[in-house]
């Protein structure tokens, strides 16, 4: 046993038992971040804050929510929204944070793509991030079902139906997922379990892994300069804080992030209290009704781009059904970003504006994603269907063909 002496304060007392000083050093004070970064590097901490908001408000909501098709709608819209003190606030915060977190995830992802932060040693950061994106999607979808409104019900209907397209076991798979022949009470209960138990646990584990994956290759910087972190850290410790190219996570990096969080929260609460319809679709305030199909069924905005890839292929080609082509394209769209570090054949790590063709590719991809998102919501009729088809083809081509080609050239 270590030699325990009379502690001279609470920190010392804890330090003798838990080595808190060493832990703080490893996690915060001597965790080095490049100095040359811009506000886009704050997205990670903002995401952590938003996840915490979701977790805490979620706990408060579970206290009143009832996962039963006969009770769910009223437990949300009456008990939580009107009867429990500030229940409306927790629900609005939860709903808006769930939507906004995807906006920040997309900014975070596109930042990673723009600055080349997914390759040359940083592949695991990228992959764990993509895993988080996928599990977050499942978390968002399962949560959207819980109020048991019209959109909850019909989105569940449409999405679970997709699994019917899996070869051979499709039909059985759909029933297995729903727990019944149709979307009904067992479906709601199991999605409740996924939303409040299994998926949050998985998310927390992947977040820990994502943070850990950053430690060895370190965070990228604005000019993708390869830094000798040990050397720079030594400089900093020796007192050359201005000359060193790194800063400690605490307090330097976090003080900056704390500033961004505060500014972001002004915007966040503006959305929560005054502009929430984008995150809480009015149609979902109609109770679920299996006999009344809404005029337009669409997913939340953050799923629209992949939803449009799914329905973009609206005509049969030869003997292959449109549904199957769409489903295959949708499947590719879900996993294609995982492969980004290998689809990019070049070993140049530089921001996009220093990479010529890649720069053009990046902006075309961004615009294409926005086109897919907007047309994913519009009714797929007439010209809309063709624009959706075109944008879907462009999306697949950009990632599967164009990116490998231009980056291979870049390497030469």
């Amino acid at each position, binding site marked *: 046993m270590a030699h325990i002496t009379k502690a001279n304060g609470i920190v010392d007392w804890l330090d003798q038992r838990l080595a808190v000083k060493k832990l703080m050093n490893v996690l915060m004070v001597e965790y080095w971040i490049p100095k040359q970064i811009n506000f886009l590097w704050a997205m990670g901490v903002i995401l952590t804050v938003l996840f915490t908001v979701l977790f805490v408000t979620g706990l408060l909501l579970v206290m009143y929510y009832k996962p039963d098709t006969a009770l769910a709608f009223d437990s949300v819209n009456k008990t939580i929204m009107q009867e429990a003190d500030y229940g409306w606030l927790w629900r609005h915060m939860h709903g808006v944070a769930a939507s906004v977190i995807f906006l920040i995830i997309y900014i975070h992802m596109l930042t990673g793509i723009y600055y080349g932060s997914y390759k040359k040693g940083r592949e695991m950061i990228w992959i764990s991030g993509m895993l988080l994106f996928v599990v977050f999607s499942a978390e968002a979808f399962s949560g959207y079902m819980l109020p048991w409104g019209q959109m909850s019900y019909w989105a569940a209907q449409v999405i679970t139906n997709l699994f019917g397209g899996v070869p051979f076991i499709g039909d059985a798979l759909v029933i297995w997922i729903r727990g019944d022949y149709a979307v009904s009470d067992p479906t709601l209960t199991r999605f409740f379990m996924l939303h409040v138990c299994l998926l949050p646990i998985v998310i927390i584990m992947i977040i820990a892994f994502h943070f850990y994956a950053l430690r060895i290759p370190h965070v990228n910087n604005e000019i993708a300069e390869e830094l000798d972190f040990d050397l720079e850290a030594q400089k900093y410790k020796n007192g050359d804080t201005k000359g060193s190219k790194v800063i400690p996570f605490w307090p330097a990096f976090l003080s900056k992030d704390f500033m961004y969080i505060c500014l972001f929260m002004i915007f966040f609460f503006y959305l929560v209290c005054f502009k929430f319809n984008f995150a809480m679709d009015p149609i979902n305030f109609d109770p679920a009704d299996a006999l009344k199909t809404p005029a337009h069924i669409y997913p939340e905005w953050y799923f629209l781009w992949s939803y449009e890839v799914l329905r973009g292929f609206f005509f049969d080609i030869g003997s292959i059904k449109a549904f199957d082509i769409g489903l295959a394209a949708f499947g590719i769209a879900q996993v294609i970003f995982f492969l980004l570090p290998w689809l990019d054949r070049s070993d140049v790590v530089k921001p996009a504006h220093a990479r010529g063709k890649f720069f053009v590719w990046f902006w075309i991809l961004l615009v294409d994603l926005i086109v897919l998102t907007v047309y994913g*919501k519009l009714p797929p009729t007439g010209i809309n269907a063709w624009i959706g088809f075109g944008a879907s083809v462009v999306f697949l081509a950009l990632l599967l063909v164009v990116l490998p080609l231009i980056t291979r050239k870049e390497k030469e």
Partner: protein
Amino acid sequence: MREFKIFLVVACFTALTYWGVEPYAHSVMKPHVAPANFDFEQEDINFAKKILAEKEKALELAKAENNETNVESANKALELAKENLAKQEALWASVAKIDFNSGNASEGKAFFETNCVACHGAKFDGIEGAITDSSLGVLPPDLSSAGLIYDEKFLAALIMNPALALKVDHKFGDAFLMTPYNAEVSGENEDVANANIANVIAYLKEIGIKYQEDFENKTKALLDEKYAKLTELDEGTKKVLWQKDFEFAKDKNNFIEACGRCHDMKYDSFTAVSAKNDLKAYLGSNPPDLSMMIRSRGDEYLHNFINNTQKLLVGTAMPRVGITEEAQASVVAYLEKVGDSKKEERESLGLYIMGFFVILSIFAIAWKRKIWSKLH
């Protein structure tokens, strides 16, 4: 500066996406309709003309396609639209002949007691209607408040041609529950019939005003009693709460009078007066509970819909309600007070929280500057 440029790029693309999926997409998906018009004559004739124009266009399109079956059905639809416009114009032309100012309330009461009472009551004036349940499909309304909440021209149109004025002719045709009263049906001279209608409406207005006075007095008494007991509150708060309760009671009463025979308001513990299975047999489906309508439909939709139900939900069995602008505002206010009861709290608290983060941001910026002064 560079940081600010990056922020602008992010903000612009975010705003573009938001615009695309929210205002733009919804403007494409939502039907475009003229705003609610409480001159019901204008509203009905304009609406019939608009449908006529649409059908003409459809016919032209079918002709251009050269598809015979389509042309035939488009022709039929056009004929129907023309017929409908003619009917509306005829009805409102006869309403225009009525001199509402010359109505005599006491003669109206006599008319009411010999004709309307077969179904309707005016309980406030001690008149019981002969039908007191929903066995015909829906409970015939008690008309104590009708003169106050319904528009007089609408009431006249309703008496002369109920199915057409209520916009349920597409569903019930001539077999509508309420029998029309007009010169043609009664065989009387047109002036006599018009005078009768003016008299009845004068009567309804007279008791409507008294009914409202009585309702307000009773409510005031109840509230005075309630607040007299709440001694721990100071006078100022009491006054504010009293006024809120009073407005709420008035709005709720208007809701019950205008909507409460068919619709529930579960979140305010109100159940429709007509029996559920009667309504279902009569209308084809159960009228929805209205508790969350303010969140699911929004203020503007509700105003346009109540004003002219067919405009937003073609073929619906819900009749046009025909309430005045004032009564409709009160009904929608009630929907909001029940369905979005925390709106006031949300909007005031929202400002406080944002203010809190503005102040916190100032401290955060100062802290960041202090720490970074050693780094740059």
